[in-house]
């Protein structure tokens, strides 16, 4: 295996690091991912049911927005996820670019559709929330526009990867696009602070207590956890399919599918 030769240089660093590098090879990552997927699905179901129950039945009505605010329980987790998945995708892309590890590129490719889904969900639920509360489906304020750009970045990444036949070259091209797009993430996050926007400021901040009733906060955090677990489960399922597709000529894949 060529990969083993490449990692010989790391032996001096630490033994545990090598243990982790083992999973940089598709052959050993494939079964590991397979073992983890059911757990993430189960966690997604548990958190999802608990989160939805709190969101619909426990969390109180909002003083300003009445029942309509409840869309926050999908909108905020989806928006967080859309930004976070992009960071993770860019991280894998950078790792693949720097270290030439094969699974990294596959991870980035596997994350993109879920990220795009989250961005679309965020924009869509946002429009449905904006119409009754603000009086507009859409405004070109900094928050909304930068989130739309994030959605297009995901689509562009997927299109670019799909347009190049050689997977290693596709990974490299995609990685550069993913890294360039990273600039957009802090812009989305801080847009409501830096500029006048119609979108309200952040309810959850690192620097101050959340300006939200406790049960509402619990509902939102549980939903966010459910979104996390779902995203990991789906990305791992997808990366397994990508591994099989790219490694279909190897012996181990032939044996794995028997």
């Amino acid at each position, binding site marked *: 295996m060529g990969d083993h030769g490449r990692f010989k240089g790391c032996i001096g660093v630490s033994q545990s690091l090598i243990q982790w590098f083992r999973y940089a090879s598709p052959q050993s990552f494939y079964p590991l991912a397979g073992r983890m997927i059911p757990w993430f699905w189960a966690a997604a179901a548990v958190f999802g049911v608990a989160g939805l129950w709190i969101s619909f039945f426990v969390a109180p009505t909002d003083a*300003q927005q009445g029942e309509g605010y409840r869309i926050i329980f999908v909108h905020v987790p989806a928006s967080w996820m859309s930004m976070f998945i992009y960071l993770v995708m860019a991280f894998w892309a950078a790792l693949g670019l720097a270290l030439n590890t094969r699974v990294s590129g596959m991870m980035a490719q596997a994350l993109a559709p879920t990220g795009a889904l989250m961005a679309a969900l965020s924009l869509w639920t946002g429009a449905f929330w904006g119409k009754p*509360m*603000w009086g507009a489906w859409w405004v070109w304020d900094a928050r909304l526009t930068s989130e739309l750009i994030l959605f297009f970045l995901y689509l562009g990444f997927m299109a670019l990867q799909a347009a190049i036949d050689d997977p290693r070259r596709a990974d490299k091209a995609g990685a550069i696009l993913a890294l360039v797009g990273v600039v957009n993430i802090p812009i989305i996050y801080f847009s409501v602070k830096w500029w006048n926007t*119609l979108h309200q400021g952040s309810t959850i901040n690192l620097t101050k207590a959340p300006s939200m009733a406790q049960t509402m906060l619990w509902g939102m955090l549980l939903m966010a956890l459910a979104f996390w677990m779902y995203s990991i489960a789906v990305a791992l399922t997808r990366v397994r399919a990508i591994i099989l597709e790219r490694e279909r000529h190897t012996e181990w894949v032939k044996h794995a599918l028997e």
Partner: protein
Amino acid sequence: MKPRQKRIALIVGGLASLTLAAVLALNALDSNIALYVTPSEVAAGKAPQGKAFRIGGLVKEGSIKRQDLTVNFIVTDTAKEIPVTYTGILPDLFKEGKGAVVQGRLGTDGKFAATEVLAKHDENYMPPEAKHAVDQAQKAQAK
């Protein structure tokens, strides 16, 4: 340098220069990215001349006057005020003392003729009882 280190350096350098470029571009675009100007900025002559723009602020308490479908109210940032006139349907969250963003043109008489009124709500979510308690506390403090 090993090829791997070279690639890492290239990625880090690329990201750094990209960030710098983005910061410079956003700084240059600053006023164009803002969705609205405040009444103080309008008073300082920073509003675009001769074209439609948006003003954002609070709807002044006691300023809403309705006449059929036409509404007159004052948008304030507590320093400066701008009278606004608008004909049409208002969003539910449009209320006195709350945020609003109005789009339209500034007339020569200093009145802003709005073609669109949007409500801007804050980032606080609480049940009505808690809201009531907060309002009471604020009133008590003001006395």
